[in-house]
């Protein structure tokens, strides 16, 4: 066999020859809705997730508009409670959890492994439709008038007192869990059993290590929230009382159950983001990733330690001080692998040939934002400061920095990085870079003031507040609208590129992981023939030549 050169597995003659690709291989709505092609399923996920992101985002803008003035003048307290509940539930269950793995992950995972599809294509499609089915419940809740429990569904409020369609929301979240489990299961099996010849674990792109660690959490943590929500549904319908103190049950047990899932799940949201950044930081600075095994290992160790720290959400719940101290200590432990990643990315940039393009801008934006989000997490992991900061805007700012700033900036990075591969078109770099600044400034203006308001004691989840916080809240609201505008501009230029964008070459970034070796957009079965993995995912051509 001849030595592998770029584009071996794309069209044999010329990569610019128009070829039947996955987008135009079959036509009609049915060919999309019932497709078994992981690429189409990924695209459908992406479109759906972005749609729900818009719904959740508009709810957020409503919340910010209300908080522009100290008085509760735009919505009633009850409406406001429903808005932040639905904002939270939609963003967590419908957007952040599947955001990167189900959309981008589905698209790139088999390609990166040099395979034709994931291990179980029908399960993959089923997982998509289960997602849609679960999402329908949440949408129906919205139409029914919403719920006001907060996305955390704490008992006994959610079981005994809350009005509205709590059972519908719970059922929706319960169903969505199956979708998450099945995607995770599919990915684990695919990575274990279906790698290209020559692709050892240490030759996998770091995105795959991240998706692997994510999938492990999805499979292990999600069933626990499933049984929790299941019990809570019966609590609500039949008042079985396991979580209800008036029946002799234990509400703190609910919190333990809830956070046993809901803490690890923040790593479901953010580990794929780490994977994306590990790819883009290396490809766009034309350097080997620094500390490959350290980054890969830190993904796995975050997934492992992430299961042991849920109690830091419950420092004020009445758990014992010893428990609190242990959870606090272990939480600090997670900072180590996270810092390893951050330092490795920065070391990768060091003396690299950095490309100042949109993808790199968002990559650096992510590193900056996640650094702030991660460091402020340590304040909350410290019991003494958490007593002061618990349930204030400091917490709100912290988890938006890691979840929205982390996951969504990485999702945006991923969309831009793989956009040419997915759509076959290039977007406008100049508009992209300008939009980045708008998004970055808007984002930080939204959430940084919330740290300040939080340390001064502004509590979360109130629709009115004392006037001393007005300046911070107004800055935050202005920032959120700037950020919202930036996202709409992004939507605009991406859609524009679909029709008017320059046709993308098969490998615009000069990356060497296998997904770039096939045609752009990929053919229906990904590769002509069976790819063989002969070099590492970051052995760029110019490095080889220079050596």
């Amino acid at each position, binding site marked *: *066999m*001849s030595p592998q050169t770029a584009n071996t597995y794309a069209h*044999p003659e010329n990569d610019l020859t128009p070829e039947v690709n996955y987008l135009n291989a079959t036509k009609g709505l049915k060919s999309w809705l019932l497709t078994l092609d992981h690429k189409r399923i990924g695209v459908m996920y992406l479109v759906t997730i972005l749609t729900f992101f818009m719904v959740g985002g508009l709810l957020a803008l409503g919340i910010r508009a209300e908080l522009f003035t100290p008085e509760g003048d735009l919505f009633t307290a009850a409406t406001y409670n429903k808005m932040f509940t639905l904002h939270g539930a939609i963003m967590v269950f419908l957007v952040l959890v599947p955001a990167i793995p189900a959309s981008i992950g589905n698209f790139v995972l*088999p390609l990166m492994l040099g*395979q*034709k*599809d994931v*291990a*179980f*294509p029908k*399960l993959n499609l089923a997982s998509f439709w289960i997602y849609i089915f679960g999402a329908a419940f949440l949408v129906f809740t919205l139409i029914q008038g919403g719920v006001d429990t907060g996305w955390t569904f704490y008992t006994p409020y959610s079981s005994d007192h809350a009005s509205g369609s709590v059972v519908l929301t719970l059922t929706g979240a319960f169903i969505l869990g199956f979708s998450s*489990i099945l995607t995770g*299961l*599919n990915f*684990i*099996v*695919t990575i*274990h*059993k*279906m790698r290209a010849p020559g692709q050892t674990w240490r030759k996998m792109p770091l995105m795959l290590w991240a998706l692997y660690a994510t999938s492990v959490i999805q*499979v*292990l*943590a*999600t*069933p*626990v929230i*499933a*049984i*929790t929500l*299941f*019990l809570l549904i*019966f*609590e609500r319908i*039949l*008042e*079985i*009382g*396991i979580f*209800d103190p*008036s*029946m*002799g*049950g*234990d509400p703190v*047990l609910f919190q333990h*159950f809830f956070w046993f899932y809901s803490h690890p799940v923040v790593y479901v949201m953010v580990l794929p983001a780490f994977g994306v950044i590990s790819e883009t930081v290396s490809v766009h600075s034309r350097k080997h990733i620094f500390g490959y095994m350290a980054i890969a290992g830190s993904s796995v160790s975050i997934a492992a330690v992430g299961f042991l720290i849920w109690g830091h959400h419950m420092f004020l719940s009445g758990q014992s001080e010893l428990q609190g101290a242990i959870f606090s200590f272990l939480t600090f432990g997670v900072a180590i692998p996270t810092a390893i990643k951050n330092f490795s990315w920065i070391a990768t940039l060091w003396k690299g040939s950095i490309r100042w393009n949109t993808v790199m801008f968002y990559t650096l934006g992510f590193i900056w934002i996640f650094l702030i989000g991660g460091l402020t997490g340590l304040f909350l992991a410290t019991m003494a400061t958490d007593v002061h900061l618990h349930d204030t805007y400091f917490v709100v700012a912290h988890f938006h920095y890691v979840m929205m700033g982390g996951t969504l900036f990485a999702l945006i990075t991923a969309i831009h990085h793989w956009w040419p591969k997915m759509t076959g078109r290039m977007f406008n770099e100049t508009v992209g870079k300008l939009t980045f600044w708008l998004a970055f400034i808007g984002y930080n203006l939204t959430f940084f003031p919330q740290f300040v308001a939080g340390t001064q004691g502004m509590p979360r989840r109130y629709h009115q507040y004392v006037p001393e916080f007005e300046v911070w809240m107004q800055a935050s609201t202005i920032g959120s609208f700037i950020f919202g505008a930036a996202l709409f501009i992004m939507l605009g230029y991406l859609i524009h590129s679909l029709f008017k964008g320059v046709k993308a070459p098969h490998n615009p970034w000069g990356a060497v992981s296998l997904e770039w070796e096939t045609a752009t957009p990929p053919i229906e*079965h990904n590769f*002509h*023939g*069976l790819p063989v993995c002969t070099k590492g995912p970051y052995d760029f051509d110019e490095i080889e030549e220079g050596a």
Partner: protein
Amino acid sequence: MNANEGGAAANADRNPYLAHHFLDKFQQDDAVKMGMWLFLVQELLFFGGLFMAYISMRFLYPETFLQEALAHLDWRLGAINTVALLTSSLTMALAVRAAQQGKQKQLVPLLGVTAVLALAFMGIKYFEYSHKIHDGLMPGIYYAGEAVGAVEAVHHAPQIFFSVYFMMTGVHGLHVLIGVGLIGYLMWRATKGEMNENNYSFVDNVGLYWHLVDLIWIFLFPLLYLVK
């Protein structure tokens, strides 16, 4: 070399049970088996929540769990059910073996016996449930057992014991019913001759699932009926 051409030639004698995206049957069977084990892992965590609820509630009300279990759960019925499920696990394992060896004549009857034993289990469960419902031994607010005052109920909390009992056995029973459905589907496929030595992964996986359901009962039985 263009591997595609080699692929086209190999397509002619490709195993009809081999999906297009796998290299060979070994890879496919390996993947399918691993997927099933992962599914069983998540099942364990799902039930893990219920076991945790049991532990937690038992710590809160140790005497209640003892008294209610002794007074209202019949260990003899539990024992019969245990034997039924254990035997069904045996017949399931024999069915898997029959499928692997392509012994069609044994496969369908063995699956049939498994399903019948599962239904017998559910029959006894139904008998137990209706007896408890008749006695008012219901979970939560529907508890109407021995007339205890509201305050007393909170402290003694028999309703919590029955919440735990009904949730644990209910979720387990649901899994038994799903298992019966799967076994029925297998029998239908087997009568068409589709479950044979070239294609037994599905029998294998239903078998694994069935053993897990059995195993969970092995824990439920002593925890609810026997522990003193």
